[in-house]
């Protein structure tokens, strides 16, 4: 009896460890390939070649960049709050990676918890807070403005984001992401609630700090926003954060609206990764084509467009499907 329990327990632990390793490999694979694809896509849009020299098609360029960034000296500004400034980027990275672990990757891989959806979005709202901490603690005025923008941004898109998710949960009658995906076996939610998808996609763009909502690190205004004084190794962490956040965002979009891992012939995990990559490339193409929004306009856009739309979406979902 005791030995049997121990066996099940050790079996569970072994499975857990394997899953942790596999998902981490997914994260690193996506981050690396996305970094390369983004550079190539943007280059294609701009009549350039992108990275070509390091490796075939410049595949190892990002690796070379990471090595360069990690080998450089870390410079910390004297005006910075040392503790917060050095602790916040790794904490942010840990938060984002943890969030990826909270998502299921197929019916068997990854965890499936009953309040998974709620937990992901509650924890996700801590990310702007971390960005605020980095910006405010660096002692640079551009970073300080970036920190202010961080707060204003999260005020303007968090509520529509959560309401769009509420529409999904309302239809599915569950907060369990595995259930939500399996409900989309015949019809992905993008067809059932296009308005909800639009709101969610736009709010996710803002959450991921992608143009036209890259207000926190606005290149042409704030130089790099919260990244202005971030030293080289920490900048590598920030890049890792950026790409992992991209992974998280495109996973969430494909899980909640694009029927997640459901698809013919290929294994479920592969389908999910393919969908995540496609969503990520769409976001990159948007980056290549739009100009940046202004912060007060974003606030107005969030409260006067996204919020009514998301409420309308909930009402419509309730009337059409739930009642």
């Amino acid at each position: 009896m005791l030995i049997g329990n121990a066996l099940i327990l050790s079996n569970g632990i072994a499975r857990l460890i394997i899953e942790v390793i596999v998902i981490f490999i997914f994260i690193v694979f996506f981050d690396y390939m996305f970094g390369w694809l983004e550079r190539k896509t943007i280059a294609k849009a701009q009549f350039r070649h992108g990275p070509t020299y390091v490796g075939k098609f410049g595949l190892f360029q990002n690796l070379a960049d990471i090595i360069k960034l990690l080998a450089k000296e870390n410079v910390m500004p004297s005006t910075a709050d040392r503790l917060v400034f050095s602790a916040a980027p790794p904490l942010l990275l840990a938060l984002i990676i943890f969030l990826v672990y909270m998502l299921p990757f197929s019916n068997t891989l990854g965890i499936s918890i009953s309040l998974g959806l709620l937990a992901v979005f509650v924890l996700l709202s801590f990310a702007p807070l971390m960005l605020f901490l980095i910006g405010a603690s660096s002692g640079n005025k551009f970073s300080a403005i970036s920190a202010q923008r961080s707060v204003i941004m999260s005020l303007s898109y968090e509520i529509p984001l959560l309401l769009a998710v509420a529409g999904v949960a309302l239809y599915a009658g569950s907060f369990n992401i595995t259930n939500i995906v399996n409900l989309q076996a015949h019809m992905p939610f993008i067809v059932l609630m296009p308005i909800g998808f639009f709101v969610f996609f736009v709010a996710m763009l803002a959450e991921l700090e992608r143009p036209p909502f890259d207000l926190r690190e606005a290149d042409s205004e704030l130089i790099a926003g919260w990244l202005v004084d971030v030293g080289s190794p920490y900048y590598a962490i920030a890049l890792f954060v950026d790409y992992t956040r991209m992974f998280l965002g495109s996973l969430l979009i494909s899980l909640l609206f694009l029927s997640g891992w459901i698809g013919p012939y290929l294994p479920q995990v592969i389908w999910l990764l393919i969908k995540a990559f496609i969503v990520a490339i769409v976001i990159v193409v948007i980056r290549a084509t739009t100009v940046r929004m202004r912060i007060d306009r974003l606030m107005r856009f969030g409260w006067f467009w996204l919020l009514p739309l998301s409420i309308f979406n909930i009402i419509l979902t309730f009337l059409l499907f739930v009642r």
Partner: protein
Amino acid sequence: MLTKINVGPIHPSTHGVLRLVVTLDGDTIVNVEPHIGFLHRGVEKLAENRMYMQNESYMEKIDYAAPMAYSDLYVAALEEAMGIQTKERAKYVRLILLEFQRIASHLLWLGTFCNDLGQMFTMFMWTMKDRDLILNLLQDVTGSRMFYVNMRLGGVSIDLPPNFEEHAKKLLDYLEKRLKEYEVYLEKNPIFIERTKNVGTLKRNDAIELGVTGPVLRASGVNFDVRRDYSYYVYDKLHFIPQVQTRGDVFARYRVRMLEMRESIKLIRDALKSMPEGDALGMPVKLISPPVKESEVKVRRELPRGEGMIFMVADKQRPYRLSIRAPAFINLSSLRQIAIGERYADLFAILGSLDLVMADVDR
């Protein structure tokens, strides 16, 4: 609480080495103080120590985005001092080259302007590609890509090559198509409209009092263009309408430049059609100067950035004193008037819409 921010001289959106000390109240601009002079080379003083035709290459470096316009301005001042008439064909050749230069300059502006609005480098690369084709054409004529030094007293150094007309027409068709694409691409984008319309308005009276010229002035509703009002070369013979907008905001300035490129294309086509045969070559460069007829001359030209003026006190072999009215410098002085009360993010849209070249400002 007021915040003071130092923008530049090293900043992605200050187009060179402009330093702005910006006072912010929250997100609203209370004051902007431009600090200039980082690129001051004393061109006006240098010109006093060189022979007349040696100065031309110095003049081109004043505005590296439209060098030929400046060399034309200087040579025109010299021609007036010497009492030399420009040859009839040379007038057409100069006009064609200058209008190509204007299109190239405006294309460069369009790219950097979109960069300032946060559309990082896509538009920039596209317009640079088109500008490159113009530079190739100018290279066919003059032999160099950036600093041409093609203007000579009474004419040009090298006449247009035999296949120029064919190449130019092909390029103009291509540019017209591209400009239409850019217009659709930008003006159908609601965020672009939002970022430019009713932002950074310069009223008509303020524009006149501040002395701004060129597209910035015409965007504020003042119908003034040196090419028409103080016509030179053959601008009065060709069909040419200055482009005027009334709103005076960033979008109006964008629109004026877009329409001006169209107008330039039309001008070049007209000029190519009616260009006479003959000789366009000017006097070869001689260190010994020709005799000076007038001792004080003032010449004005419509440069891509506005009205450029040279006041020259001529001496026997070199200018005794040379004074340049740089359009970008005067246009920069209107920044404060425009930017106060606007949002911080719009400061860069406004700055981009003024089309500054810091070498031109600092001289």
